[in-house]
């Protein structure tokens, strides 16, 4: 196996990594290499056996494995080199990669450019600090998804789900279909964490109780989980005395947020944005470290797989151009600043010379608002929710109107939604 003269190395082969690698190849990079720690291409798509993938990208309703398969076939057809069961343990600022697997042992690679596509991980119980005992039967929704959909095991039959992220809601439906009883989905916020379509299709359609402004205040059971206490919370998200109810259950799933996986990025000296948890990138998805690009959920957590692949394609295309030392035309840098009710914006910097699509997430749910981009852009929106990402297309002619080298994105509310 030839592991020298690599143009673009892509770390990870989920919907981001494969899209980036394919695009890099299509942009003319000769030697593209994917490093994947699992046994097969596809990352977490394998365990996402539900549909809803590719509605925009392929304009077809696919399952996760189907979506992944289409990319995997293309990876094969294009002759992209793949190293499976290969764990990258280090990336240095000068783009040297150290990896380990059970065939080549320890590998050192020096590609011309790198695309980070490691995706994200789930927040755990430890990070949430859920009080109580430490029995078996507490899993993140994604771990349970792997057990049910890949390994063929059902963790338990009386289930409570904490958090209303998409994987949690999808697992509520999945476990119901497997014959388990999902007794409640508790969400600490006054609105769900995931997509509205999942609330309808996974919870309402299956009569699964959704308890908004509720959280788990205690875990019971020494050996296996026996029950959880759930309480209503006030505006400061603190449990309200007297509202506690104990729900008997053998399984608790957590779907309380995803964290971009950037330990390797930090080793490489990549600057991360505390608001996204991912690298600070420009519109080419290049990080502060020259030649290191990033795309997909490693940059920020997307709602839809389609956007993950699209964003990663940008990183793949420009990683290929970087590899052949093409001028990127990065004159006139504009910084994007989150304003009122905006939690984050990606990319964090753009150039005035090109059209660009911005992704942004709000902090709070609001209705009847205007999304404003400084004085060059305004759009009325009926509702904005943290669980649903905003996508804003700006043309270079709009950007040329900018007098400053910064633009603030904000939500100007006419009627702020009252909590509770």
């Amino acid at each position, binding site marked *: 196996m030839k592991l020298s003269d690599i143009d673009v190395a892509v770390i990870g082969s989920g919907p981001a990594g494969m899209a980036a690698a394919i695009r890099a190849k299509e942009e003319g990079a000769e030697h593209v290499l994917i490093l994947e720690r699992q046994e097969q291409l596809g990352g977490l798509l394998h365990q996402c056996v539900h549909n809803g993938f590719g509605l925009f990208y392929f304009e077809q309703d696919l399952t996760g494995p189907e979506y992944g398969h289409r990319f995997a076939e293309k990876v094969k057809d294009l002759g992209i080199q793949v190293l499976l069961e290969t764990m990258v343990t280090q990336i240095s600022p000068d783009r040297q990669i150290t990896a380990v697997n*059970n*065939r080549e042992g320890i590998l050192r690679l020096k590609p011309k450019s790198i695309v980070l596509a490691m995706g994200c*991980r789930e927040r755990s*119980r430890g990070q949430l600090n859920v009080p109580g005992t430490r029995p*078996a039967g507490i899993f993140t929704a994604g771990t349970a998804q792997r057990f049910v959909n890949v390994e063929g095991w059902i963790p338990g039959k009386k289930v409570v789900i904490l958090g209303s992220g998409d994987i949690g809601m999808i697992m509520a439906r999945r476990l119901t279909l497997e014959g388990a009883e999902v007794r409640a989905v508790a969400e600490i916020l006054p609105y769900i964490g995931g997509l509205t379509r999942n609330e309808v299709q996974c919870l309402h359609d299956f009569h699964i109780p959704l308890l908004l402004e509720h959280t788990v205040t205690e875990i019971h059971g020494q050996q*296996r989980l026996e029950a959880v206490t759930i309480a209503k919370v006030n505006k400061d998200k603190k449990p309200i005395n007297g509202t506690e109810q104990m729900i008997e259950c053998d399984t608790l799933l957590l779907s309380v947020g995803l964290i971009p996986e950037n330990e390797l990025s930090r080793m490489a000296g990549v600057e991360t944005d505390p608001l996204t948890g991912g690298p600070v990138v420009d519109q080419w998805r290049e990080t502060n470290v020259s030649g290191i690009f990033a795309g997909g959920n490693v940059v920020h957590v997307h709602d839809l797989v389609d956007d993950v692949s699209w964003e990663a394609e940008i990183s793949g295309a420009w990683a290929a151009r970087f590899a052949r030392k093409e001028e990127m035309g990065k004159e006139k840098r504009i910084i994007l600043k989150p304003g009122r009710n905006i939690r984050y914006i990606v990319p964090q910097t753009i150039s005035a010379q090109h059209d660009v699509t911005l992704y942004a997430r709000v902090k709070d749910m609001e209705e009847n608002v205007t999304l404003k981009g400084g004085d060059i852009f305004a759009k009325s929106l009926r509702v904005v929710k943290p669980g649903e990402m905003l996508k804003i297309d700006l043309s270079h002619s709009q950007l040329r109107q900018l007098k400053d080298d910064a633009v603030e994105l904000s939500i100007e509310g006419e009627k702020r939604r009252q909590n509770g």
Partner: protein
Amino acid sequence: MAQMETEVLIIGGGVLGAAVARELSRYKGDVILVEKEVDFGWGSTKTNMCIVCQGGDTLEFRSEYHRSKLVWDSMPLMEPLCQELDVPFKKVGELALIRNNEELAKFQKLKSRAEKIGIKTHEFIDQETLRRMEPHVTREGIGALYDPNIAIVDPVRLTIGLIENAGQNGVKVMRETEVVRISQDANQFKVETNRGSVKCRFIVNAAGTSVDKIARLVNSDDFVLYPIRGYVGILDKNLGGLIKHEIHMRPDAPGQTNILTPSVHGNLFFGTTMQPALRGDCSTTGRIAEIGLQNVRKIIPDLSEKEIIHSFAGFLMFRNWEVGWHECVVQASQKVPRFISICIGYPGVSAAPAAAREVTELLRQEGLKLETDERFSPFRKAPPVFNELPEEQQKELIAKDSRYGHVVCRCETVSEGEIVEAIRHGATTLDGIKFRTRAGMGRCQGGFCTPRVVKILARELGLSEEKITKKGRESRLLLYKSKDLLEAQI
């Protein structure tokens, strides 16, 4: 086991029972150790903060305190012991922060008292030096008292090292073996367990939080112990370099401690509130976690709670006020011959080497013949830790067994080879793998590796994945096979 006989029976496979077993394995004669859990060191040992000999102990050392003497006597023994057992030991030093002149006066008094009895390692450092040594620590305060001798260990690995070395030297160890009844006649005890009975001449009761319960089984109520619950939080390895020393701050409220320390594996631990609680109730509460965070922020003011990856509670057994907080139990029963109890409370790990010697001496006084076994070897080789090896050795390992090149736990870079080796060494559960290899101990807390570890456990143990538990007994992880529940509905 239906019925067994031995000279000495040790009850409890925590760090103290293990240390006694290893000490006794120097001599001829049969020794059995029984542990009620499925693995070793799962009681107070695993909730220990890993610090060997805390400042509070050296500084407040008084020759009249039994526990202080054990801690002090253990200090020179710990490093060579860790070397013999091939387990981590790292000298980090301690900084006891001094916030005001009142505290300074108190520390001066303690320091001069310690010097009078020959402890001369402490040194006052000013705020500027402190800042140079620990730039992220609070700028409030006037300096610190520095003790370079404080070290950190891995209590569970130390315990397993002791157990394995004792095993190599002839001690029989039995897990999932819980003592339920003890009867006695003039010459021997008959100890009944859930797995049969053991006849023995001597008992070493090192049952941790159950030490007084075991003593009551032979009507030896020489001591009263109170369970005190402590809370420990673990911070992400990203913050591993934030501090280099163990840092200690005098508590604002009685019954609270406030410690932040590096661990031998590169995380930071912070430990806080101590409160009386129901024995065995290792649950954490929102309140204790909040106080924990508030306290550690007095040391590192801008610490984000997002960096906490895990927290847990554990128990220490304390003597009653009349006897004194600084006392411990290492004694032969006044009422029952040949029955020795050992319980240090805090810090049990630091005191273990000397306490084990003392127990051996007590056994001799009670009539046990100690005849040196020429075949005793103090050395035990730990299984390889892939992540900690230099690259050349990593390569050799993979060449020998390719499973060392297959990373299963990505947060801690733990390979399949290490997991298989841990199973060979006796791990049978998910937590067993976690404490022996660190798989599942990292920032994702097993989110990624749990299904993989379960699979390897099932394969190596020749069991169905359904049978794999988190921590033994009724803690099965997967209750049903796919479609089981649907078929049950039809």
